[in-house]
């Protein structure tokens, strides 16, 4: 799965927002191995993560998303607005 991540668009390199569906997560810790700055295991199988990863962690996060055996990690889609952009 190619993981499209917001901020790949030129000039808009923003932090990556992410969320883990912890109902799906089975604590395989692949994310914590591959992106240790973003995901940590709390005890053996409880996952804690930063819902906002910095620019420096983008590559790690992409590896983690691809590796999650149950595909539980969602990041900003490639075409997602960074924030609400429309008229208020």
């Amino acid at each position, binding site marked *: *799965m*190619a993981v499209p991540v917001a901020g790949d668009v030129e000039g808009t390199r923003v932090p990556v927002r992410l969320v883990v569906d912890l109902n799906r997560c089975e604590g395989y810790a692949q994310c914590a191995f*591959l992106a*240790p700055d973003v995901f940590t295991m709390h005890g053996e199988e409880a996952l804690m993560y930063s819902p906002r990863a910095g620019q420096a962690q983008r590559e790690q996060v992409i590896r983690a998303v691809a590796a999650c055996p149950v595909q539980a990690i969602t990041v900003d889609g490639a075409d997602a607005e960074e924030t609400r952009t429309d008229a208020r």
Partner: protein
Amino acid sequence: MTQATLLQQITDYASRADPYPLYAELRRTPVARQESGVYTVSTYWEILGLLHDPRISSDARNRDPLAGGPLAEPGEDANLPPSFIRLDPPEHDRLRRLAMRPFGPPHSPRRIHDMRGELARMVAGLVDGLQGREQADIVDDFAYPFPVMVICKLLGVPHEDEPRFHVWAERIVTGLDPSPDQDQAERQRVVQQARLELGRYLAELAEEHRRAPGDDLLSAMVAERDPEERMSLVELVTTAVLLLIAGHETTVNLIANGTLTLLRHPDVLKRLRGEPGLAVPLVEELLRYEPPVQLLPQRTALTDIDVAGAVIPKGAPIWLVLASGSRDPRRFDDPDRFDPDRRDNQHLGFGSGIHYCFGAPLARLEAQVALAELARRLSNPRLVDDPPPYRPSPVLRGPRHLQVAFDGVVP
């Protein structure tokens, strides 16, 4: 054609290059009793379900000795009990947890991540070695030595000893293969002998590391002070044997299968050259499309189990055909297409459930680094033989040699 001959065809060496059409046939009966008494499970949801099913055991001691099957388990040797891949909870969970302490989260979350620089250097060194040549065997010159260097380094095994333990490793792995024609007892004896010798070697090594510890898993495991968290020497040895073999005989196939697949899909190879990040989803797709571990022949039913309209009786041996499940059209769109951009790729390449591959993060990084570097540096690579000659095993499947011709090596 009956199912029994179908399974024989699958294990038959002649099918090694392309077992996938046979798997498609096998999937017509998701759970099938084979003549030998083995129950094959070949469809995605059924395999996934059984991998999460507590009524299935990985411990061969639960197998009904009369159930037979070409892969009746070797009677476990009293001197070297099974490692955690062949154990059930709670022993499995305890040993896996202890092995994880020096290897990964929560206690050593950065060990693998911090090896990335080193992995890149090892790979670069091996590719440098191809300079000045026009052809190479990607298996012997690259895909095999690389993961061996890595697992040696990680475990704290001197790389110079490789020729010694290579022989034992080969014997142990061959012992896994279902080859009905050979004498079972003799095979078991050879495997046990090899395991024992490898175990003895590792025990001596562990003792050395106790005296002079390094930054490696063996040292960490022998040095553990907390008696609650310590393995016995026998446990330590069986675990080390397991890691050495698993680290040794699997990733080689992922890299070799990957190289072969890339050479068969030049468009993807070309993309990878300009876009190294593609290696990440590409490796996942390889694990689906050409998985190094094709099937798990170790499971046993602890009770009668109803699956997909069939009943697997208590004590029966079960083969979970992972490679077939990962090509199940009920789960994956266009499953026979190699598509590194595939979304929704929950392949079975590393298994699932409590025995999910312990070394998966390492294997992933190794394959990503290796394939990206190979793609970038070999100019105009071409397959010499297609299909290449394969290793004998239908379980751990991959090319024995992979001759690739190229115009040169880019720095």
